[in-house]
């Protein structure tokens, strides 16, 4: 049995002697008697070796693929070894929230650098230190921007998990959520929605790039706040939400160095214009100086947070995804601007190659809009047959959306040979 304790029997006896007790159970004398009497079975533990074997056996029950063409919110990217090595340093991995700045300067500075990178990518003035996921970042941003009397408006082409999470969070606060239909896969903003806040994604769930400028100005013209959800990798190439006039940018930065890991932990991010700085949910690191005038970093604007403002806090968030934010900062430092653009370009180029070849093979594009690295094909009645045929070749195909449509994703992990094999398999299945 593994136990990780450092107290020997002799020490235990000595400590108990100091406390004047002969049995450990005396320490639990405050427990009501009927609770102390309650008996329940306790299992034996296992050695580290046995534990590893037991968990490895479970891991082996999952299918492994030689190539992956599925995204839809979880992306298979290359993670440089240096990322994994650096972030696994125990100081980063095991420390608590940096409430003691003098012994947390490293973590605070890394978070400050992460905030700077997210501001740069999104074109915003301030970024938080992280959120649980893109879904909760979107939900918290909508709650922040909403006024109680007007609805939040969104579209049915956003990520479905995000849409459900928005529904949960807004309903609890008594805020109406209006979901508009995006007819041809792209959002159109009609006048007269009466929205207090508008949320849309670009690229959206179907991979399509929205007219961020047009949607933002239409919504703002009617007095709504605008929140844009973005895969931050796409922002290596495209105009940022900030440049397009949006108020808040959110999303999930899992593509920056985090494995798919069955859906988490990922990295919700939120960045906003500076007028939101005292309304933002969650931690923010700021720069200041110490008693000797040296630069120092601290958690700042803490009066927004639950540990001070309690029921009047801007959010209940305490633990966030700090280690994932560090991972993203290390990833972005390693790729640099040029490397990140190359990764994004390779994703987009692969996706456009695969889309064209699939189309030639009979799997036509379902939507016309320009896309980033995901796209939807239509093959009447054949979606699951296609993905099953790919599974037999150890390829994880696109995500079937229904019987007819498949949502594909390409990343820099896919080579031409893999894509050609997908096309061949699809052709055979049709």
């Amino acid at each position: 049995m593994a136990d990780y304790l450092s107290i020997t029997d002799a020490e235990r006896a000595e400590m108990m002697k100091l406390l004047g007790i002969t049995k450990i159970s005396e320490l639990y004398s405050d427990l009501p008697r009927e609770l102390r009497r309650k008996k329940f079975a306790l299992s034996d533990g296992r050695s580290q070796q046995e534990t590893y074997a037991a968990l490895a056996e479970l891991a082996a029950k999952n299918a492994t693929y030689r190539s992956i063409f599925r995204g839809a919110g979880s992306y298979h990217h290359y993670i440089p070894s240096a990322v994994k090595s650096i972030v696994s340093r125990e100081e980063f991995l095991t420390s608590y929230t940096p409430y003691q700045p003098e012994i947390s300067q490293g973590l605070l500075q890394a978070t400050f650098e992460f905030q700077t990178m997210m501001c740069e990518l999104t074109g915003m003035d301030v970024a938080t230190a992280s959120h649980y996921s893109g879904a909760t970042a979107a939900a918290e941003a909508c709650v922040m921007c909403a006024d109680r009397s007007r609805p939040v408006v969104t579209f049915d082409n956003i990520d479905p998990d995000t849409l459900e999470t928005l529904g949960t969070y807004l309903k609890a606060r008594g805020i109406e959520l209006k979901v508009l239909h995006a007819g041809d896969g792209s959002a159109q903003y009609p006048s007269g929605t009466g929205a207090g806040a508008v949320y849309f994604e670009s690229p959206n769930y179907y991979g399509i790039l929205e007219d961020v400028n047009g949607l933002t100005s239409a919504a703002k013209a009617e007095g709504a706040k605008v929140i844009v959800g973005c895969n931050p990798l796409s922002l290596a190439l495209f105009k940022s939400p900030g440049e397009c006039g949006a108020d808040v940018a959110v999303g999930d930065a899992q593509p920056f160095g985090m494995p798919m890991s069955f859906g988490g932990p990922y990295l919700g991010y939120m960045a906003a214009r500076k007028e939101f700085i005292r309304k933002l949910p969650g931690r923010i690191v700021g720069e200041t100086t110490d008693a000797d005038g040296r630069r120092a970093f601290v958690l700042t604007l803490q009066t927004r947070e639950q540990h001070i403002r309690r029921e009047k806090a801007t959010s209940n968030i305490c633990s966030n995804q700090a280690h994932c934010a560090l991972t993203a900062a290390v990833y972005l430092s390693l790729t640099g601007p040029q490397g990140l653009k190359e990764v994004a370009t390779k994703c987009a180029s692969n996706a456009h190659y695969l889309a064209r070849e699939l189309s030639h093979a009979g799997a036509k594009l379902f939507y016309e809009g320009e896309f980033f690295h995901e796209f939807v094909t239509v093959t009447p009645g054949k979606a699951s047959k296609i993905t099953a045929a790919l599974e037999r070749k150890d390829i994880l195909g696109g995500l079937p959306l229904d019987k007819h449509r498949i949502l594909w994703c390409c990343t820099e992990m896919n080579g031409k040979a893999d894509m050609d094999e997908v096309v061949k398999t699809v052709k055979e299945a049709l």
Partner: protein
Amino acid sequence: MKTVFEKSVKGRRGVQPSALDVERYDYESYRLREELVLPELSEPEVAAHYTALSKRTFGVDDGFYPLGSCTMKYNPKLHEEIAALPGFANAHPLARADKVQGCLAVIDTLSAYLAGITGMDGVTLQPCAGAHGEYTALLMVRAYHRSRGDEKRTKVLIPDSAHGTNPASAVMAGFEVVTLRSAPDGSVDLDDLKAKAGEDTAALMLTNPSTLGLFEKNVLEIAGIVHGAGALMYYDGANLNAIMGVVRPGDMGFDLVHLNLHKTFSAPHGGGGPGSGPVCCKAELTPFLPDPQIVRTEKGFRFGRGDWSVGRVSAFYGNFGVYVKALAYIVALGGKGLREAAETAVLNANYLREKISYFYPVGDRRCMHEFVLSMRRLRDETGVTAADVAKGLIDRGIHPPTMYFPLIVEDALMFEPTETASKEMLDAAADALKEIIALAYSDPDALRSAPHTTPVRRPDEAAAARNPVVKG
């Protein structure tokens, strides 16, 4: 120390992606951004930068870390290797259920263990942190009452000693907060509870052991009052480390609990996250658990959805890579090991308390896994504050305890040694504290200007808040 941006040199490259082997796709120029400013560094420089930053950060392996309420126990290295197994790390959350049976078995097995440890029936692993678990559980409380046509239960009772997340979560879940007065020993004031529990009460949120590190002796009577009013009992699992394997919240009369797998079950804190905050509940509340649920069938596990579910609270299934570490911990320790961990945590806390308790203890009862000292008398007599004492500990290689919490104790310092601390650590901490208290009387300025051994001294937090500089 320079930031990674300040170290950047134009044209320097780190990791380069593999080359394109299809035609490069170019977007129309109106879509493209003009400039992207990120650090430009070589891989050796990036490694050096972050290694230097890590050395300016204090982790659990760097010394005694008795941060109260945070359960800073050792994080086994084994678990990192397990979470990184390709079968887990490369599992796509939207793969067909029959292709990810290993992941679903992790969820099912861990859920069963947690239900057993807490004495509950249903579990969700979707909440990503403790506060997220509180929020989820309160949504379930609301849905439960509404399903019974009981619309008027709009208030949640929360003791004044509670963590700030409790009232903040209650408001996010659409409730009003009613604050309960604590008795001087941090326990619930039963008269105040009786006066405030009524037909508008949805639930009582209770931390047990309390934030003063004391077991709530009257917990069964409290449950009787709350249930008698038709409300539910909610257990904040922040302090479960004192009692796991010893007594179960379900037996104490609680209907829902949230756990902090990053505290109690050894998953690392990661500098503030990611955590994992599962919710466990009694059978009558299981219909309200978030979607999706994992369903066990003869052919294996599959996903299911509930008609009465509160819906989703985040993407996918929560922080899988965190909770798989908690499963490894429970498998390794077993029920017996968990109980021994709890008992040792309580022994360590009482031992340290005994050695230093003549410094301003709060209460005269034995503590559970943590205890609180009040530095009020020290401040009155020397002008040295709880924060000054904390900074003095830093200079002696010890991470400070939690400061100024719980709010019901003036100038509080809250110590939680955890079970993995050695006796030498506890003895050294007691000695360090004695030395600091003596110094407060002989040379208070030495403490007011502490720490002296760190890369920076006390930062000007007022300047940071007054003129926020939040990016480089």
